[in-house]
């Protein structure tokens, strides 16, 4: 069974469970009053994270392998604040930049397999 099919099978129970929790918590009523903008952003978040992101990830695994893919995908630590500056107007302070730099190098070392180039 391929990764996309497995991904589909694993997301189905998760989505159902979240809907059930929403119903029990009394949040389900908000579905009827959901605005188009909120829906579009959440749909974009889901598609970029769970569909496009994972498809790209699996293709990368096939093309260059896990040892090179994982450290490169950690670039998201540095790219996320840049995206947040443009999309949600978040500021990047010098302290945050230093911390992010350390996290990036640390996670790169943690996920890089010895001997990989």
């Amino acid at each position, binding site marked *: 069974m391929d990764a996309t099919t497995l991904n589909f099978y694993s997301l189905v129970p998760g989505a159902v469970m979240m809907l059930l929790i929403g119903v029990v*918590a009394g949040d389900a009523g908000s579905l009827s009053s959901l605005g188009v903008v909120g829906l*579009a952003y*959440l749909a974009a978040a889901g598609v970029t994270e769970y569909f496009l992101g994972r498809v790209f990830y699996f293709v990368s695994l096939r093309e260059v392998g896990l040892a090179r893919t994982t450290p490169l995908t950690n670039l998201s630590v540095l790219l996320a604040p840049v995206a947040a500056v443009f999309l949600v107007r978040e500021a990047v302070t010098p302290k945050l930049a230093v911390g992010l730099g350390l996290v990036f190098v*640390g996670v790169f070392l943690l996920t890089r397999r010895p001997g990989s180039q």
Partner: protein
Amino acid sequence: MRYSWAIGTALLWAIAPSFAKLGLSTGVPMTIGTFIALAVTLPFLYGMATLMGNRPRLWGVDRNILLASLASGILNALATLSYFIALNLELVSVVVAVSCVANPLVAMLVVRLFFKEEKLSRQVVVGTVLAITGTIIIVS
């Protein structure tokens, strides 16, 4: 060119939290926000799997695959829910950094607990120290 898929992944995974934060800022409850983000993906995955000749079946799926999918699906949904709650409370940069550090650290801890023969290299120790130091600087 071969590396563009990995860089594309990083780019997509970097943009997604901002989209989620924007969506949640409209007042959508966390549970419903998580449900939408997960549910919207299903037709795309179904279509992609069908195109690749592995159309997901509703019946007759191997029991082990179903159990594994159930467990990973539930954990994944709870992880997404807590991620969304964190995004609603904190800066995108902080949430992404903390989750990025926690992922390999927990994996390393699990490996150490269950596969005791695996030794910690100097690279892993230095990486851990740097990642934790960076996280402390970010959240302090």
